[in-house]
């Protein structure tokens, strides 16, 4: 019997092939079900995030980064066709995410727990790289001259100079870690984060002070008191090559000053108090106590009275985590807050606040008490940097002080309330009138330049000459309610 092979007849599948096809069909169905479920879950997740980003309130500024957030852009046809308008919308949306600062904190915690360095890089004008070049040192500070009764004041400073230095943290190794160019070290059971001084000599700074001295001659005494950063005292031995010596910088800068300018180096003074709360651990500023010791040194040099610390009303706020957390984003700082300690004068005074054009704004205390954001406690001193401040005291010695400062000067001002009849404070970065006109109009007798090391050697110092030359031909009028610029 012959059989014909029919190509169209269904081929019989083997048992294995049948099972395989059944398995594949079953797996396909399972895949589709799971895929459908996955899509639903992802869609829900996206919907929740979209809802959160769209409908929750959007912040307008960030306290953590201390800046205003991107605003909705202004519309114009030009902006639309150049892409600026649409780019601005995107920037606004991205920059103003709801609960931005809180979520950044969560991000920091995640990074800290799972071993990620924070991604932010904050640049400073003097850099934070290892110091590879070192300015020529001046081991012998230039002798400073001062008018008036020099002998007794210098003697008192010398006697106090015989106090022993407290702990030299620079001679001890410590654990540390880098975050965004900031160094956090672990000392005496706490974390301290520091900006690192890269070195330099204040040539622009000296040039401006010399210019002022040249204009004013001996009618006014000019003082230079740069303020060291914390790293001068707390940089561990094993990181010694990561920052330059600030005391040497100050001495080198002093060498560039004219003979009539009084230069004060407070580094040796502060070195005697390192175990006290003189510098914030979580902020780039010093604490009130550090400013006190500096101010005392200045007062002794200037030959003015100075109230002992016991005469001040001490106050403190807990839970202080300052700017170094924002700079470094090191969660260790956030989890190791400190006390913000301040000293309020008990003597009588009146403070007047002006804008940078020296237009009177309001009258208030030297201290701003209602600061909600704990990272901004330093603003308590003279309400921050945005005002020109005049303080009239009940001192009667004919001495009027003008302080030209950066934010390091703010903490000093309350301590001069027992030393001068009037203290006028201008910020070296923001003042918009002529400094010489101000000095002459307000009958200033003493001008103190006091700012951080960064400002001495960096861009802020470049603005000092502008202060001497800008707006030179306008009269300056003090329109505060006291009306008169003399004390009655």
């Amino acid at each position, binding site marked *: 019997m012959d059989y014909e092979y029919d190509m169209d007849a269904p081929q019989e599948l083997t048992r294995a092939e049948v099972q395989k096809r059944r*398995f594949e069909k*079953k*797996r396909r169905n*399972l*895949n*589709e079900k*799971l*895929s*459908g*479920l*996955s*899509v639903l*879950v*992802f869609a829900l*997740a*996206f919907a929740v*995030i*979209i809802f959160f*980003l*769209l409908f929750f309130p959007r912040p307008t500024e960030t306290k953590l980064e201390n800046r205003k957030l*991107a605003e909705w852009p202004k519309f114009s046809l030009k902006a639309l*066709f*150049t*892409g*600026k308008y*649409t*780019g601005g*919308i*995107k*920037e606004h*949306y*991205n*920059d103003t*995410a709801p609960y*931005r600062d809180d*979520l*950044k904190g*969560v*991000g920091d915690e*995640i*990074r800290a727990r*799972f*071993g*990620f*360095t*924070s*991604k*932010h*890089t904050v640049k400073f004008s003097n850099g934070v*790289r*290892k110091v*590879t070049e070192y300015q020529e040192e001046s081991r012998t500070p230039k002798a400073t001259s001062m008018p008036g009764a020099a002998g007794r004041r210098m003697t008192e400073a010398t006697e106090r100079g015989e106090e022993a230095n407290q702990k030299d943290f620079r001679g001890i190794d410590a654990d*540390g*870690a*880098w975050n*965004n*160019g900031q160094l956090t070290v672990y000392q005496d059971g706490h974390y301290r984060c520091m900006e690192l001084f890269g070195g330099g000599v204040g040539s622009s700074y000296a040039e401006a002070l010399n210019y002022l001295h040249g204009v004013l001659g001996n009618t006014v005494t000019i003082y230079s008191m740069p303020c060291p950063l914390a790293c001068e005292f707390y940089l561990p031995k*094993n*990181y010694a090559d*990561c920052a330059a010596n600030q005391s040497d910088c100050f001495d080198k800068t002093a060498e560039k000053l004219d003979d009539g300018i009084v230069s004060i180096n407070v580094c040796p003074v502060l070195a005697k108090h390192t175990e006290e709360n003189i510098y914030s651990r979580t902020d780039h500023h010093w604490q009130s106590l550090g400013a006190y010791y500096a101010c005392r040194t200045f007062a002794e040099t200037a030959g003015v009275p100075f109230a002992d610390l016991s005469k001040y009303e001490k106050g403190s706020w807990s839970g202080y985590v300052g700017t170094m957390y924002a700079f470094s984003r090191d969660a260790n700082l956030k989890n190791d807050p400190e006390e913000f300690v301040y000293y309020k004068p008990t003597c009588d005074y009146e403070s007047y606040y002006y804008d940078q054009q020296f237009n009177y704004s309001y009258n208030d205390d030297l201290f701003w008490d209602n600061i909600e954001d704990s990272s901004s406690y330093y603003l308590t001193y003279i309400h921050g940097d945005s005002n020109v401040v005049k303080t009239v005291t009940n001192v009667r010695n004919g001495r009027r002080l003008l302080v030209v400062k950066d934010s390091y000067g703010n903490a000093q001002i309350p301590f001069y309330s027992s030393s001068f009849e009037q203290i006028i404070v201008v910020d070296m970065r923001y003042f918009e009138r002529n400094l010489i006109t101000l000095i002459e109009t307000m009958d200033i007798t003493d001008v103190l330049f006091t700012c951080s090391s960064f400002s001495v050697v960096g861009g802020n110092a470049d603005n000092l000459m502008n202060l001497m030359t800008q707006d030179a031909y306008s009269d300056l009028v003090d329109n505060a309610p006291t009306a008169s610029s003399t004390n009655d």
Partner: protein
Amino acid sequence: MVFADLFFLFVFLPLCLLCYYMAKSIRTKNIILILFSLLFYAWGEKLWFLLPLSALFNWAVGLWIGKTRHTSAGKLAVAVGLIGDIGLLLVFKYTDFFIGNFNGLFGTHVPLPHVHLPIGISFFTFQAISYVLDCYWETVEVQKKFPKFLLYLSLFPQLIAGPIVRYSVVEKEIDKRSVSASDIAEGIQRVIIGLAKKAIVANSLYAIVTEMLGEKGEFIASQSFLGTWFGIILYALYVYYDFSAYSDMAIGMGRMFGFHFNENFDHPFVCTTIAEFWQRWHISLGSFFRDYLLYVKIFGKNRIYLSLFLVWFCTGMWHGAAWNFILWGLFYGCFMLFEQKMGRKRMKKWPTLIKHIYTKLVIIIGFGIFMFVSMKDLGIFFRNISGVSMALGKTGFADRQGWSFFVRNIFLIVAAIACSLPLLPKLKKTVLQSRSDAVYTVGRIAAVVGCLVLLVVSVIFLIDNTNNPFLYFRF
């Protein structure tokens, strides 16, 4: 617009997907994609009109080729197309480079015009070139409808940072494609993985690299011997994660629209030869130069060495208008030539360890050349990694900062290295091929949960970041 961006992820993309899935016909879907793609390109870009103009130009050249293919007019059409596309690239990307070198060579002071570089120009121009040549070689049918060609060139998932998609890959899918739940699920997961690679890994690696070496390598002089090696290894990982992240997101998004782009990265660090590295790294670029430049006859003949030189010169130059990129390309060209001369069979006999040491050394040093645009810094880099700086007393063997970065980021580094190996794909394959429904289901659920965690963490990290464009954005 970039992908690792809150606005793109939670405004633009959802809107686009919503409109796309609501459309019924393929024609409507294509129109929606074209509109969103042009909007994507125009968003924040002032020279947005270049893309549609380039599309019109190349589409017209394609039509011209279609009519004159086997004649000298066809050759002319190709020449016009290539001159137009390459010319566009030269003008916008290399003008400053040429003028700068001219000034340096002849002592002139011609001012640099600082021409604005339109985003993605290197990518869509190469796509256009591939289309023109494919039309001439009849690899693809000439696209007679401009909107379809515009869709190909402007499709936003692959528009500004690749992969360089050939027309042949999407030719059929332009007219006919479908999207299943599986496609969407896979696509979303791929997008999330890409996002996590960028927002979590690449950005974190970049933070360390910039701290150690500087944004442009300006801190290299202060790095120790080990610190330099460590920094460059991290930089290599960063470039891989940054670029492959974008490709992942592009492929994932393409999948969600029904397009199936080819893979662009295939775990390049497991390579055992440099040739294999380039078969796994930026695959679409490597294959572009292989297919369109390597075997082109030069002055009527196949000239192997000249072709190799051209390919690697162009590869380097494509990456950036600076000499270090050209040097980088030629560096790899030398090793490709070496391996060609050595022969595949002979190289296979090398011990595996030696092959890995050889390839990793070449790759790491290559990334050093890639990073340092300044020749001075590049010289210091070579001095550091070779130990000469140490011998001269300019730097030490190790430094505290480098050690601190290593210790504080050990989990990130281990995870980055582990995830650059094909471990997770192997695990995925094992799960997907498992005959046990329980294992399969648990594996799928774990993948979804893992992706959700990655999504949330990525969003938190993105909020921490206002603007951090992908590395290959500048190309």
